[in-house]
């Protein structure tokens, strides 16, 4: 139950730091702190299949994990120089605010209130998600609109909790929500039939379904009831660090657009295409402008591949989740992922 205690403890420790400490003078110097430490500290999910959790050997894997490895690769040329801190939805923001982690890469929705009142900034949307519902097949429910009067298990401290109430209200349905501090507890309660439905971002539903006693007897309903742009976040006030996080994402998207993959990156260095040459540092000084080396993108792509490769390997066709690219396809293929030009 350390999670529950930890949650209160984090809030309390944060209050104490605010009361008696001085704000880290290093608001401008996250990169320097990371370099001096020799390690990036990354806030990750810890339990969500496909996005961030340790595999049976204890190695962290997942889409959000890859993103942190990409940053570490850009800085140290070594994707293993990351320490992952598992966070709940409830304590993730506080961990970032208090400086416990350098970057939060934990399927976190970018919203206006979070962006403007929590002292954090969102770098770039690396996964366009939306909230969905999972139900047991035996209930014979085909649409979320049939869930009037149903009990729904939900995790606390999430946009999910708010969207759920909104959706039921907007459709004149009665909601019986059962709120838990962690996704673990909410999923367990759903699995023991305490609730008729479990709701979270649809990417999470596919991941959590794998943890149920009988995944195949549960279905994800077709409705997507919200917009959930998931984005890595950093503390507000260190623009240079935010740039590094943001461009790590765009380097991966640009690489996919330009056809640069983990395998062919060395050959691509010899390409005549100026876009590729700028991305890979053969032309211009884009990396050193951020305080990194000019081959920063090469390091990223060698470590985790381009955006599409990371997606497919962790949550797409190369994974048990088999999530379609959908909104996360490149803009040229009907999706929303659009590489901001490197020039």
């Amino acid at each position, binding site marked *: *139950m350390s999670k529950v205690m930890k949650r209160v403890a984090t*809030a309390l420790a944060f209050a104490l730091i605010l009361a008696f400490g001085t704000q880290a003078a290093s608001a401008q110097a996250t990169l320097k702190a990371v370099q001096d430490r020799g390690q990036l500290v990354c806030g990750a999910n810890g339990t969500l299949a496909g996005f961030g959790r340790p595999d049976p050997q204890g190695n962290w894997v997942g889409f959000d994990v890859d993103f942190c490895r990409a940053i570490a690769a850009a800085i140290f040329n070594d994707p293993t120089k990351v320490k992952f801190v598992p966070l709940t939805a409830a304590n993730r923001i506080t961990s970032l605010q208090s400086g416990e982690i350098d970057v939060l890469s934990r399927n976190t929705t970018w919203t206006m209130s979070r962006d403007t009142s929590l002292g954090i900034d969102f770098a770039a949307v690396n996964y366009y998600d939306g909230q969905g519902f999972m139900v047991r097949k035996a209930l014979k429910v085909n649409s979320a609109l049939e869930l009037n*009067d149903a*009990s729904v298990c939900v995790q606390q*401290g999430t946009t999910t909790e708010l969207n759920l109430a909104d959706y039921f209200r907007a459709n004149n349905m009665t909601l*019986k*929500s059962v*709120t838990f501090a962690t996704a673990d507890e909410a999923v367990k309660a759903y699995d*023991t039939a305490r609730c008729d439905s479990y709701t979270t971002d649809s990417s999470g539903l596919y991941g959590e379904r794998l943890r149920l006693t009988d995944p195949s007897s549960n279905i994800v309903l077709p409705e997507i009831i919200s917009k959930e742009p998931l984005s890595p976040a950093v503390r507000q006030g260190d623009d240079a660090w935010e740039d590094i996080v943001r461009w790590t994402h765009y380097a991966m998207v640009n690489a996919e657009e330009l056809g640069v993959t983990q395998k062919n990156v060395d050959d691509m260095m010899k390409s005549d295409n100026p876009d590729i040459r700028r991305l890979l540092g053969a032309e211009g000084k884009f990396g050193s402008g951020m305080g990194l080396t000019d081959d920063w993108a090469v390091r990223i792509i060698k470590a985790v591949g381009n955006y599409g490769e990371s997606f497919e390997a962790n949550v797409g066709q190369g994974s048990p989740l088999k999530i379609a690219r959908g909104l996360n396809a490149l803009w040229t293929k009907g999706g929303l992922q659009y590489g901001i030009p490197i020039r």
Partner: protein
Amino acid sequence: MAEIAKASARPRRARWLDARQLGSIATQLALLAVVGGLFYAAAVNAARNLAAAHIASGFGFWNNTAGFDISQTLIAYSSSASTFGRAFWVGLLNTLLVASIAIVFATVLGFTIGIARLSRNWLVSHLAGGYVELIRNVPLLLQLLFWYNAVLKSLPELHGSMTLPGGGFFNNRGLFLPRPQFGESFRFALIVFLLGLIATLVLGLWARRRQDRTGKRFQIRWIALGLIVVVPALVFAASGSPLSFSFPNLGRFNVQGGVEILPEFAALLFALSIYTAAFIAEVVRAGLLAVPQGQTEAAQALGLPPGATLRRIVIPQAMRVIVPPLTSQYLNLIKNSSLAVAIGYPDLVQVFTGSVLFITGQAVEIVAVTMAVYLAISLCTSLLMNWYGHAVGIVER
């Protein structure tokens, strides 16, 4: 007592001018100033740090719309219309509800087991001893998870619900009982009942006084039964039995209508009551053992039956010893109720330092308010128990 107070008044006034006394007061004032200054500096520093980190501060969020749903609300609450402030009150009331009911259960159970432990019956005393040793040596959180995950979730699912006699349902979504619906004229029966209760209390007081004064006993039992039960029942029948029940019924997903008792509430109530009862039993046992054996023997020599000896001689003297540690147990129970977060019961910590904190992100204000609330509840409980302790304490003559 009065004489002593008067006698000590004069020298105290003289000592007020004592230089040493003045020095001590100055020291204490200085200490107070330092502590106060420390708190002030902390508050100012926190505000400055929050501003520097671009984090919103203050209580502006209090009147903003909450937007999230709460599974158990004692006062009207809706996610669309209610504020974070309202959510705070909902959580606080849920905490008070579970804590107060658990205190009653724990006290009854604890006294029963404490007394049973001193029983001369081998089986009874050893069963009670076994209970105490088993319960107080297993962490409360584990017991809570046991009740919630092992006991309540293994109840039948909705469509296999146990049907209770009288039209209730029992399943893994909770206990659903008929909801009483009071008619217009029910208030007549209620008024007569309350009048009967007051009359009985007055009569009891009078009987006690008379017995103290003259030694004559007055059997109040049958009159009380008449006043509290029979007369209101007659009025109830005469006014046309204005009480009906709305029965719960099985819907597609949930039981609809009726009174609903959530499994989260039940699990927390069981765990808190059963756990605290083990400690109260030990407090009670200690209190009873602190009464000298001679008191019991004297009572027996006077011919009092064992029940009356316990009620009239032993327990009143034991209460002096029992009340202070009992207060501690009550305080522990109230604070332990915050373990609700582990099973999703919407208490103050779950709602306020949970959902509200993580939606608003204002950790400092919310944690401070929550700590202040627990402090206030605990101080009130202590005050009440101290007052009770004085009331039941033996008046030495």
